[in-house]
């Protein structure tokens, strides 16, 4: 599996996307804090976090006795640059040209 495969696979699950949204709202949470937001066993949440960590979408740091989870948006940025920009470049450029033309001739 490539890095991109892991990211797409990790994002293909609604619980994992919800976990990312939770970290986006407030970063650096413990497992217990994340677990309290989900109707799921601790083990289930750990499994999802593991998939997110393998995809590098979540990075953990030790802070004293606690393990804090951080959202790492970098792999999504890399995919955005690799895929989204490529496919949106042409229509976007066309629209920018259209805008320039329309604004030139009143």
């Amino acid at each position: 599996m490539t890095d991109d495969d892991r990211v797409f696979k990790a994002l293909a699950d609604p619980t994992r996307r919800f976990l990312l949204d939770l970290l986006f709202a407030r970063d650096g949470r413990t497992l217990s804090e994340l677990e309290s937001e989900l109707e799921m066993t601790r083990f289930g949440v750990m499994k999802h976090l593991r998939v997110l960590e393998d995809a590098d979408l979540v990075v953990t740091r030790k802070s004293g006795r606690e393990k804090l989870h951080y959202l790492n948006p970098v792999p999504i940025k890399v995919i955005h640059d690799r895929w989204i920009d490529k496919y949106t470049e042409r229509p976007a450029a066309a629209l920018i040209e259209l805008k320039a033309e329309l604004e030139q001739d009143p």
Partner: protein
Amino acid sequence: MTSTHTAVTTQVYSIYIKATPEKVWDAITKPEWTDRYGYGGLTDYDFTPGAKFETRPSESMVKAGKEMGHPVAEVIIDGEVIEADPPRRLVLSWRMLMDADLAAEGFTRLTYELKEAAGGTKLTVIHELENAPKLAVVTGGSAEDEGAGGGWPWILSDLKSLLETGTPLAG
């Protein structure tokens, strides 16, 4: 929820780069590399703990600033080396001087960690932004639409692109 936590203001980013830790270290710490990706600028370090460092704008940044009527400051980032263990770990105090509001927030703590990982390097950036909410918006990439660039996600994906393909994303 029993909430005993303090406000978390640390940002953590990580990226895998197909290059040796030495090469990634050079890209972070040598001026001939630092100007080639992300926001650019020329940074040179003396790795003695306590030594000051400065990031200066490149000639093209100075020129572009003059043309747009916004002269670029002589020093755009400054700080101190807290800890350096080439090519594994670099801890800095770090202050952004491009903008008066950001400069007023003072020094933040920035850590680079490099680890050898499956045919490359895992680079982790930890930016502790305790008293710097405005800078946190910029480094998080949320101010991209206001022309403040894409923050760490952008810098790191650009660095990856430069080291793996020889050219940064901006081209």
